[in-house]
């Protein structure tokens, strides 16, 4: 029921996001949801009052590329996903290496 939702494969992620950036969209949020064994990553972008979502589904243990080369301000979202879900995100510009939330139990949402 999300409006303007596009489900894509992990391999096409960075190209898709570059395209979105070129169109003038800005990152609004990135979040993960555990559905069964897999994780859904939802990237939300905004342009004025329009919103666009991109969703990828990854299996446990799969590494996800960072989008911080394209959207530098996204580093907090990616660190959050790593700390709470245990999903490895490669190449974040400010990598806290698991030290953003410092939870007692590692990856509590996994």
């Amino acid at each position, binding site marked *: 029921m999300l409006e303007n939702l596009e489900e894509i494969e992990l391999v096409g992620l960075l190209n898709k996001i570059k395209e979105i950036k070129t169109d003038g969209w800005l990152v609004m949020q990135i979040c993960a949801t555990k559905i069964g064994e897999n994780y859904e990553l939802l990237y939300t972008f905004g342009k004025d009052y329009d919103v666009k979502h991109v969703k990828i589904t990854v299996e446990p243990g799969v590494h996800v590329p960072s989008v911080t080369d394209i959207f530098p301000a996204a580093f907090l979202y990616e660190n959050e996903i790593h700390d709470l879900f245990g999903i490895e995100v490669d190449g974040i510009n400010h990598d806290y290496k698991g030290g953003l939330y410092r*939870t*007692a*139990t590692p990856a509590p949402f996994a």
Partner: protein
Amino acid sequence: MRISKSPWLLHYDGSSCNGCDIEVLASTAPRFDVERFGIINTGNPKHADIFLCTGGVNSQNKDVVRQIYDQMPDPKVVLACGICACDGGIFKDCYNILGGTDTVIPVDVYVPGCAVRPEAIIDGVVKALKILDEKAEKMKRGEYRSLTSAEYAEKIASKDGSDGEALQEEKDA
């Protein structure tokens, strides 16, 4: 001269939602004005007589709470403000919350409420002042010394045969 004539207060925000902290601040603002009881809000634990704690304790701040408590001089009282500081409140079941303030240090006065009302905070502080005077009297007679946080942890452990955090987990279960 009784110590309760001008007690100094130290506020620490554990992992509260901000609601109780704002009410603690509001009780120092003109409407409620706890300063009329001679209370001064201080940031230095070594100056403080009353330790006012809001929010639950988590693994990151438990040592901070212990350290602040141990640095305060005797006599001292601890006030758990808000239901989260009393026993964890709505966040009790969260993975990152160990429980109320009494999981790590002894608490003298529990002030419930979500969020705690300034009137309740003042009431709790006034109650705490009585306890503070009693402690000071006993100290003069050489009958009293407050527990350190390490001794408190031992005391909890001896009741249960395990350490303090395990006790909290059992309470939750």
